[in-house]
């Protein structure tokens, strides 16, 4: 095809996006590293260069390990559930049954509703004399401090994240299930395979790339949770539900300890970049072919 555009046209078309990405992505990216070498705690207008000291403080801070452990627990609990349960639902919905659209709409509803409203709704369910504790006491157990007991708070918040993600991943799985050749299922039916063997031998191997994709994207979003924690627990009690992003927020915008918060942000950056790189290199490669 002949070149109908001028020499500068491609650059002019890209320029507006480039300006936004440079100002709001690339400069902040490098500045995060820079800030992590500065100390703002004495004078917020005149930071001092202190080298790696923020990292030393960070790695000597027990809260850091608590926060990392909480984030790890978040991943360990939320990611497997979000990788497996929505797949199970998608398989059920993918059968020729009635009312599929209604089920999809209802299960997708939590995805579109604001996370703030979702967190408030759960806070109400979790209230000390709330409906969940009614069920608990009906079962003959002691009422649970869902958001006030350090042993439960983190898991109570994780449940909200899971609840809000199920519909999203279910739709991703549904799209991928459509690509499984029908003949394979027909062959299974002829062989008289039951529900479980049919899906273990045909469905799962066929959509393995999607399972891997869902695993990494749900891991990345679990690393980034903030609103649930902000609205429900503020990271408490006793830091028991504090994860990385909330900790960064708290140190940066409440304690104004910008250097320390940035060191924490660098830790988050490194972890998320590793996950994203795995994602791009292995699972979404075809999407980003030049």
């Amino acid at each position, binding site marked *: 095809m002949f070149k109908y555009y001028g020499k500068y046209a491609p650059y002019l078309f890209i320029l507006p996006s480039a300006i936004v990405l440079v100002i709001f992505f690339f400069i902040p990216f490098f*500045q995060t590293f820079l800030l992590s070498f500065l100390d703002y705690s004495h004078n917020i207008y005149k930071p001092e260069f202190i080298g790696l000291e923020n990292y030393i403080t960070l790695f000597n801070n027990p809260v850091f390990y608590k926060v990392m452990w909480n984030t790890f627990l978040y991943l360990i609990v939320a990611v497997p559930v979000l990788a497996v349960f929505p797949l199970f639902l998608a398989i059920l919905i993918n059968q020729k049954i009635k009312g599929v659209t209604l089920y999809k709409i209802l299960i997708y509803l939590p995805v579109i509703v*604001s996370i703030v409203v979702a967190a408030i709704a759960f806070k109400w369910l979790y209230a000390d004399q709330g409906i969940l504790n009614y069920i608990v006491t009906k079962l003959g157990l002691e009422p649970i401090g869902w958001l006030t007991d350090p042993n439960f708070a983190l898991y109570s918040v994780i449940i909200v994240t899971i609840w809000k993600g199920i519909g999203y991943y279910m739709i991703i799985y549904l799209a991928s299930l459509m690509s499984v050749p029908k003949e394979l299922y027909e062959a299974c039916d002829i062989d008289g395979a039951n529900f479980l063997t049919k899906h273990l031998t045909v469905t799962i191997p066929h959509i393995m790339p999607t399972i891997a994709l869902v695993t990494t994207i749900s891991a990345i979003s679990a690393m980034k949770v903030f609103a649930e924690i902000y609205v429900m627990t503020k990271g408490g009690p006793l830091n028991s539900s504090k994860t990385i992003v909330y900790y960064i927020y708290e140190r940066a915008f409440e304690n104004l300890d910008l250097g320390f918060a940035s060191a924490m942000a660098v830790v988050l950056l490194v972890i998320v970049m590793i996950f994203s790189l795995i994602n791009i290199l292995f699972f979404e490669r075809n999407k980003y072919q030049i």
Partner: protein
Amino acid sequence: MKGIKFKNLYAHIILIIVSLLSIFPFIWLISTSLKGSSENIFAYPPEIIPTDFTWANYIGVWDKVDFIGYFVNSMIVAGGTVILNLILSAMAGYPLARMEFRGKKITFFAVLATIMIPFQAIMLPVYLITLKLHLVDSVNNLAGFIGLIMPFAVNAFGIFLMRQAFLGVPKEMEEAAIVDGCNVWQVFWKVLLPMVKPSLAVLAIFTFIGSWGEFLWPSIVLTKESMYTLPVGVNNLQGMFSSNWRFIAAGSILSTIPILIFFLCMQRYFISGENEGAVKG
């Protein structure tokens, strides 16, 4: 035949239970919001159907909270974010799909690299830059809105989505337009953009949902209550009405109505699965 029906019964039971669990937190919130002051909202056993039914909580919270203001602010921010995303993503996607130029590869990978940078990790410098550019509501409302929008004015997902869309347009379209005397801008604006309308719609809808629900960034930059977007305003209800759960519930439900209508009108875009992973909400 009987076996198949039996299996479907199980599927229905499970799907009904999951559907109920998906909406139950909202149902319970609605129930609480409709209970009058003579009804104990902590009653055991809990009552789903209010015995002292009333709209008073909705009226009360509506009088005390400027929901229209929050709604308008959210519309301005989400609307501005959508328009900028459409224009900027389409403009950047076009040369990446259709033109040869020096630095194309580097541009491509630079855009790809931004996917790996989570906003949450760079929000602190983004805030400092926004302050430096005076794009905050303490300067004036317009600056405040621009500050809310600009960090999300374009992203890699949008650019790649539009690039993919332009790749699917037949080259003859451009050739015919050039022969007809169009310049490059006209080719883009009059010929190519109408061809990628479906992708623009997908980008608009998912950007809108993302921007509408955004909580972290507005809660960092906003200082004036009159600038609050809906999520920030709803979170603020907790402080305003400390333990008045009837009002908090009514306010939360009120704030959800606009996005619920939007979702029900656009549901096929969300649940068809064709736009899977277009933009992570």
